[in-house]
Structures are given as structure tokens and as C-alpha cells.
């Protein structure tokens, strides 16, 4: 039954993709319906008008878009239902689909871990399907055919769902690559932009390389096992060297997809250029699928984890978290910024997973469960708020035709609802209390603070440092999102477009964002709801759950024991409401102090303009100086001089380019290497037939010599 729900989710998303293909088949559909109506004229008379209406030339695209997204939405709902039901029933359901290789049908397994990620995908897809119809309306059908967009969106979603269901290496890889390829097409959707093409290429390349690493990882496991189903892989007995090799391969593969520094390069290129609701799915959900893969591989398939692996994850995660947010901070492009911030959040998830592994390997399964829980919770939360922010970015782009935050400003008055929703997202991602982002970060800190139980000196000193780095990350994230919200929504409009912007009219687009914003808040106040579910996942996968402190109940969050730490967001909310209410009431009671509006103080010079406001690069200038080594900064100031002796400055041009280190350090050498090799190898093909004959001759001689 539960599995049927899951299958329904997959099939519905697939169906939505296929349905989108009908976009250009209106005439055929029309003919078909005519034929059908003619065959039985009486009984179908009442449908006639409906069909005629929906197939009418102007109506049809709108109708079809709606239908596609409705199917997608149902897919999301089914995914949520399936996830919820498997999480609550705590069953493990297996099945086989007779596709695939003749001796290896597709094995399906639906357990709590998959269920949890189903839930994440389901929520995100539901929100996106509310949002989608309004967003895609603006695409010109000739240049950006909906058929392609809808098809690949459907395939992308079903690919992600299938990854979660896969229970053998082959099926897993097929689903995995389906996900990659479908999203590749989505990245390349607006391919008239060279940047998009480049991003798509890099994306697909990295996906391919990552997938190869994963295949190799499975292969290492499989060479110790009797087959390729996950059950057989689980049973494989690996020496610790081989297990470590498998781990490194899996980490490379899944880490590439998840966007771990330094292999994150594709992510900030690819995520921003896709249509916004797709960016939301890619950044919010697809990265989670990569994390799912890593968890499945390390905790489930290999089973026996080593603390060194945990350390690797911890260190990589720390670098990603810090690097991600620092890079994010420098981006003037909103969607790029959000993409980099995904790198940061994935880094946090990796850190906590690393902690979980360390505790696991050192024989503290309960603490491992805590870390695991924090990681999954953060994955869940990140999916919510990152989706929300990307959808918000989509709305902003839709209304202002701008993505450069230096060109925005003052939108809070022009787009009040959007600004509220976006604010919720910003607060969640900055991990402020009362919002969901805080809960998972709090749990992460709690995990790190359990370091006292460990014996290893390296770990004992490294983990606290990592915790401090986490604190720095959180603070930087707050700074970054203050910049984002402040520059986009506050102050004065910095361009004509943002001056003329107005609130979005499409209810669906707002509803989709609202759903996510509501959940961000809900799970910020009642994290217990989701934590109970994750606890089940930990129980099933690690065989250990958190000690459920019944005395404290749903109101409290006390991961280890009430003595050690506790957090009760509802109480905090009540307290905050009381404090704010009291002060508000107290201050407003005097009628003579009604607020008065006046011009902004301009120091008496007169004429504040929007150009005088802080810009993105101005806001981040102190950070740029402090962390100067992190980026490759190219800063140029050109002055046009005029007047006698050329001493008066007529105009100043400021040029700033901040670049990621990993391009020139890691990727360009590889690219150059391949090109040079190709050049060298190309020399064998001289074009002269006598040389070619010489090769043939030499090969013959050599071979004969070899065998005799």
C-alpha cells in the first residue's frame, strides 16, 4: 500500500512530463476529440463544451500548463503521503520491477531513510507546482518551449524519487543519471545565453565524473560481494583499506553532486541559470539526494564506519561551510549567492554527518544518532528555506527583470507579501531562533559539545574548532542575508525596473512560497514533530535512537538529557510575544506621541539619491579585507582626469571582480592538461599516408616480436 503511494508519486511526475509533450499537439488532440465525439454523439455531448473550451487555441496552453503542474503537485502530495506513512509505520518494504538487466531486475526498497527524503522532495515539489504555472507563463513558447521544460521537470522529479527507491547499484545509477541528465536540460533551458551553455556543460561534466566515481565505489563493494543488489553489497566483507577506498570514491561522487568545496564549481554556475522553480528544486532537493546517497552508501552499505572518514567529512564540511558563505557574500547576483549558500549548508550537513560517524566509530551510537538527526534535520530545513528563497528570487526576477541585487532596493513597499515571505526565508537561513534553521544548528552545536566522551586527542581538539567555525559560518550567513534582504527590499530603488515593480498577481506563486514559509516557521516552533520522524530513521539505520525524555514531552527539545541542554521554542515564542506586546502597549498608550513622517536626514546637503546607498560590494568590503586570501580579487579604479594639469577628476570607474580559487587552481590545469595531451596525441595523425603505413608496419613488427 505504502509502496503504491510511492509508485504513484513517481508515475505522476513522469506523467506530468509526458503530458507537457502535448503542448504542440493541439491539432492532433482536436482531431482526436472530434473523432471520439463523432463516434458516440449522444453520451458525450456534455463533455463537448469542456473539450472545446480546453482545446481552444488561446486556452489550450494555459490549460495544459495547469494540468502539468497539477499532476506534478499530486506527485508531490503522494510523495509526502508515502514518506509520512513509511516513517510512521517504520516498515521496510521491498519489491522488484522487471526492468533492467535480465539477471538483475530493478530492486526497490522503501524504508525510513528513503521515506524521509521522499517527504523532503514531496514538500518541495508541491510548493513548486503551486508556483510553477504562474512562473512559466512568461516564457515565449517559440524560444522556450514548455514541452521541454515540463518534460524534463517531470523526468527530473521522477529521477530523484527513483534514486530513493533504488535497491541495487544498477537501478540506482540509472535513476541517478536520469536525475542529472534531466536537470542538465533544465539548466540549458535558456540556452541563448552563453553563460547558461557553459554552466550546463560544466554541470553535466561534473555529473558524469561524479557518477563514474560512484559506479567505481559500487564496483569496489561489488567485487567483495556476490552481486549488485544492496542486500548483497551490505553483506560484503571489506578490508578496511578497501572500505576506505570505496568511501573516498563515494565521497567524491556524492560530494561533487552535493557541491562540496573544492568540487563545487558547477553548482554556482548551474543552479542560478535554470528557471527559478528548477533552481529551487536543484538547490533545495537535488543536493539532498546526493546526501541521501552518501548516507546510504556509508551508513547502510558499508556499514562499518571509521572515525577517520568522519574526520574527513568534518574537515571538508567545515571548509565548504566557510568557503560557501564567504563566496556567497561576494556575489552580486541573487541566485548565484543562493547557490553558494547551498554549498555552505551542505557543508554544515557534512560536518554533522562527520561528527555522527566519529561518534559511531568510537562506540557512542546514541550520540551518533544525535549527529545523524541534526544532519537530516538540517537537510530538511535547508530544503524548505532554500526553496523558499529561490522561489522568492524567481518572483523578484519575474517582477523586476533583475537578478543583480545592486540594481534593486525599496521592494518592500512595492511587493509587501513577497518581502514578508523572503524575510522568513532570510531569517531561517541565518539560523535565528524561532525559525527552523536555528533548531538544526543548535542540534549541531549540541553534537559537537559531546566531544568530551571521545578519547582521541586529535578529535578532542579539532571538533571544538569546527564548532567555532560553525559559529563563524552562522554569523557570516546572517551578515550575508542582512545584505540580501536589506539591499533588495529596503532603502530606495536603485534602478528603473525596481522602481516600477509591483506585487505579483499570481496567487499560486505566492501560495507556493507561503506554504514553505509557513513550514519554516512551524518547524521552527515545533521541531519535535519532525524530529520524532527522523528519530525513527536513525533507529532503523543506526539501530539507535535518542533517549526519548518523556518527562519533557513535545514542548521541549532535549536531545541528550534535560540536564545537558534543552530548548523550548514555543515558550520562547510566548515570551517574545509578551515582551513585545508589553512594550508596545506601554509605549503606544500616550496619544500625543503619534509618529510623524519627515524627510530622511541628509546632513543638510540636500538631495539624497539612491546612488548614495551602500551597495553590495560596499557592504561586504570589510569582509573582503579581512578574509582577503579566500578570493581572487581583481579591483580596479579608473579615473578620468580633466582640466589644467589633468588634476581634476571627471569620472571614476570602479571595477571589482571576485573569483573562486577552485577555477584557476583545480579546473583550468585539468582543462589545459587535456588540451595539451590532445595536441600531443594529435601529432600522430600527420596526414601523410606513408607515416600511417609506417605505424601499421611497426605495429606488426612489434606484435610479432612480442609473441615470439
Amino acid at each position, binding site marked *: 500500500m505504502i509502496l503504491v503511494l510511492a509508485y504513484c508519486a513517481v508515475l505522476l511526475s513522469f506523467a506530468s512530463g509526458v503530458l507537457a509533450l502535448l503542448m504542440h499537439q493541439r491539432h492532433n488532440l482536436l482531431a482526436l476529440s472530434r473523432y471520439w465525439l463523432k463516434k458516440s454523439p449522444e453520451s458525450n455531448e456534455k463533455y463537448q463544451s469542456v473539450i472545446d473550451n480546453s482545446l481552444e487555441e488561446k486556452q489550450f496552453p494555459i490549460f495544459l500548463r495547469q494540468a502539468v503542474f497539477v499532476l506534478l503537485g499530486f506527485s508531490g502530495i503522494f510523495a509526502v503521503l508515502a514518506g509520512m506513512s513509511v516513517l510512521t509505520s517504520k516498515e521496510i518494504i521491498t519489491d522488484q520491477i522487471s526492468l533492467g538487466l535480465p539477471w538483475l531486475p530493478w530492486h526497490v526498497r522503501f524504508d525510513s531513510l528513503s521515506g524521509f527524503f521522499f517527504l523532503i522532495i514531496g514538500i518541495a515539489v508541491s510548493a513548486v507546482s503551486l508556483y510553477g504555472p504562474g512562473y512559466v507563463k512568461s516564457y515565449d513558447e517559440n524560444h522556450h518551449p514548455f514541452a521541454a521544460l515540463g518534460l524534463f521537470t517531470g523526468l527530473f522529479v521522477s529521477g530523484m524519487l527513483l534514486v530513493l527507491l533504488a535497491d541495487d547499484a544498477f537501478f540506482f545509477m540509472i535513476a541517478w543519471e536520469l536525475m542529472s541528465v534531466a536537470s542538465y536540460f533544465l539548466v540549458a533551458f535558456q540556452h541563448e545565453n552563453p553563460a547558461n551553455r557553459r554552466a550546463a556543460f560544466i554541470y553535466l561534466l561534473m555529473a558524469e565524473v561524479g557518477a563514474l566515481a560512484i559506479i567505481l565505489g559500487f564496483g569496489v563493494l561489488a567485487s567483495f560481494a556476490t552481486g549488485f543488489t544492496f542486500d548483497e553489497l551490505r553483506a560484503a566483507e571489506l578490508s578496511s583499506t578497501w572500505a576506505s577506498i570505496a568511501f573516498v570514491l563515494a565521497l567524491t561522487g556524492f560530494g561533487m553532486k552535493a557541491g562540496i568545496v573544492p568540487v563545487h564549481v558547477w553548482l554556482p554556475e548551474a543552479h542560478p541559470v535554470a528557471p527559478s522553480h528548477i533552481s529551487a528544486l536543484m538547490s533545495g532537493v537535488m543536493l539532498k539526494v546526493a546526501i541521501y546517497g552518501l548516507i546510504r552508501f556509508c551508513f547502510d552499505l558499508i556499514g562499518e564506519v571509521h572515525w577517520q572518514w568522519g574526520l574527513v567529512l568534518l574537515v571538508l564540511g567545515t571548509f565548504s561551510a566557510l568557503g560557501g558563505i564567504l563566496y556567497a557574500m561576494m556575489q552580486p547576483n541573487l541566485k548565484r549567492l543562493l547557490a553558494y549558500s547551498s554549498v555552505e549548508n551542505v557543508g554544515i550537513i557534512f560536518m554533522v554527518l562527520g561528527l555522527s560517524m566519529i561518534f559511531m566509530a568510537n562506540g557512542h551510537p546514541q550520540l551518533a544518532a544525535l549527529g545523524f538527526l541534526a544532519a537530516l534535520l538540517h537537510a530538511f530545513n535547508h530544503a524548505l528555506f532554500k526553496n523558499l528563497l529561490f522561489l522568492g528570487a524567481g518572483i523578484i526576477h519575474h517582477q523586476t527583470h533583475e537578478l543583480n541585487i545592486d540594481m534593486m532596493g525599496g521592494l518592500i513597499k512595492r511587493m509587501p507579501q513577497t518581502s514578508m515571505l523572503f524575510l522568513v526565508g532570510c531569517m531561517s537561513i541565518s539560523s535565528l531562533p524561532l525559525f527552523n534553521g536555528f533548531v538544526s544548528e543548535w542540534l549541531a552545536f549540541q553534537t559537537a559539545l559531546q566531544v568530551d566522551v571521545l578519547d582521541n586527542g586529535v578529535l578532542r581538539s579539532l571538533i571544538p574548532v569546527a564548532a567555532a567555525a560553525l559559529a563563524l559560518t552562522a554569523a557570516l550567513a546572517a551578515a550575508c542575508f542582512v545584505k540580501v534582504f536589506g539591499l533588495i527590499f529596503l532603502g530606495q530603488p536603485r534602478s528603473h525596473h525596481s522602481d516600477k515593480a509591483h506585487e505579483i498577481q499570481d496567487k499560486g506563486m505566492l501560495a507556493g512560497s507561503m506554504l514553505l514559509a509557513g513550514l519554516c516557521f512551524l518547524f521552527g516552533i515545533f521541531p519535535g514533530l519532525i524530529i520524532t520522524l527522523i528519530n525513527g530513521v536513525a533507529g532503523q539505520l543506526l539501530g539507535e535512537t535518542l533517549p526519548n525524555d518523556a518527562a519533557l514531552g513535545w514542548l521541549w527539545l532535549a536531545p541528550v538529557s534535560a540536564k545537558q541542554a534543552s530548548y523550548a521554542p514555543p515558550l520562547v515564542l510566548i515570551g517574545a510575544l509578551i515582551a513585545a506586546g508589553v512594550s508596545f502597549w506601554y509605549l503606544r498608550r500616550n496619544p500625543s506621541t503619534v509618529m510623524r513622517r519627515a524627510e530622511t536626514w541628509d546632513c543638510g546637503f540636500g538631495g539624497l539619491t539612491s546612488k548614495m546607498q551602500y551597495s553590495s560590494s560596499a557592504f561586504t568590503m570589510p569582509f573582503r579585507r579581512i578574509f582577503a586570501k579566500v578570493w581572487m580579487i581583481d579591483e580596479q579604479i579608473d579615473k578620468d582626469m580633466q582640466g589644467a594639469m589633468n588634476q581634476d577628476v571627471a569620472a571614476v570607474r570602479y571595477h571589482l571582480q571576485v573569483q573562486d580559487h577552485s577555477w584557476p587552481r583545480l579546473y583550468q590545469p585539468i582543462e589545459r592538461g587535456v588540451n595539451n595531451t590532445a595536441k600531443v596525441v594529435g601529432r600522430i595523425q600527420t596526414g*601523410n599516408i606513408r607515416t600511417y603505413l609506417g605505424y601499421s608496419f611497426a605495429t606488426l613488427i612489434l606484435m610479432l616480436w612480442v609473441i*615470439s
Partner: protein
Amino acid sequence: MNIAELDFYTQAILSLAALVGLTSFLMLGQGRLLRLIFVFAMQGFLLTLTTVLAAYSLNNHHLYISAVLTLVLKVIFIPWMLRRQVLHMNMHRDIEALNNKTTVMLGGASLMVFSYYVLQPIVQSSPVVMLNALAVSLSVVLLGMLLMISHRQAVAHVVGFMSIENGLFFAAIVATNGMPMVVELGVAFDVLVAAVLFGIFFLHIRTSIDSLDVDLLNKLNEVDK
């Protein structure tokens, strides 16, 4: 084993093998196209002789047909066609300057030794004469390739190609007393078609690059200019 102990047939075959090898060497060092073609025709004639000899001594009738085919194709038709081309192209006065002629000749000689060396393992299981004949034919094949590598004229390439065929044919007759008839016919047909095609190609190449120097055919390559 002393050659005197062998029967006359074997002695004759070995002598012919030596002669065939010699013609290959002659071709390798030959810079004049007409002489090259002449030597090639000689080689074809030696091959015909060998075939007839084999047919007679083994009393194998279909080898006579092979002999006739060889005579017609390799001794008459192909040399005639090539000669006509050369005269037509007015190339019969050209002498191709061969680079490192000595090296090539020395290489050819070592190829012969190499052929023996390669085929050495077979010796336990077969009469020596076959080994020798096979070694000669292998070296004819290799020398044919060397000829093509060292010469730049398309005509020389055709000669080299055909001389490789000669080597193969020699091997087939001497070592295995001729292939099955249907195969031989097929091979002969292929050679005939190939010869015709070569004729067509000379025409095309000449209209295309106004020469038959294959070194000029180097537009398609992977090298950075």
C-alpha cells in the same frame, strides 16, 4: 638438413623463393618507375612459375587456373596498366630520390632475418621447406610494406600493394598447396577490382593535386598548423 638431400621439386621451390625475395629487394631500391613495374612483372612471372610447378608436381589441377589468373593479372594486366599510366603522366624519366637508401636496404635484410625468427616456433611441426617458403613470403609482405613506406609515388604504392599480394599468394601455394578454389577466385576477383580502382584513382588524384606524389595528400590531419 642439406639442400642436396631434398627432392627436385623442393629445390626448385626454394630457388624460386630466393628469386622472389630478390625481386622484392630490387623493387625496394628502385627509383625509376618503369623498372619498378618491370621487376614487379618479373616477380609475378616467378609466382606463375611456382604455381605451375606446384600444380604439376602435386597434380593439383585447380592450381593451373591460379597460374593462369596470376599470369593474366600480375604479369600482364597490372604492369600494362601501370606502365600506361606512367607514360601517360610523363613520369618515366623521373627518378625518385630515395632517402637513406642503404638504411632501407639494410632494414629489408634484417626483416628477412626477422621473418625467420618469427616463424621459428613453427619449425618443429612442419618440414623445413615450408618454413623457408613461409619466411620468404612473410618477408616479401614486409618488404612490400617497406616499399610503400619508402616511396612517395602512388604508382610505387600500387606496386608495393600488389607485391604484398604476391607474397601472400606465394605463401598460399608453397606452404598450403593453394587455398580452396572458391577463395582463390574471390581473391583474384578482389585484386582485379582493386587494380581497376587504382586506375580510376590515379585519374582522380591527378586531377585533384596534379601529381601522384602521395606526400601531397595530407590535408586531413590532426596537427596544428
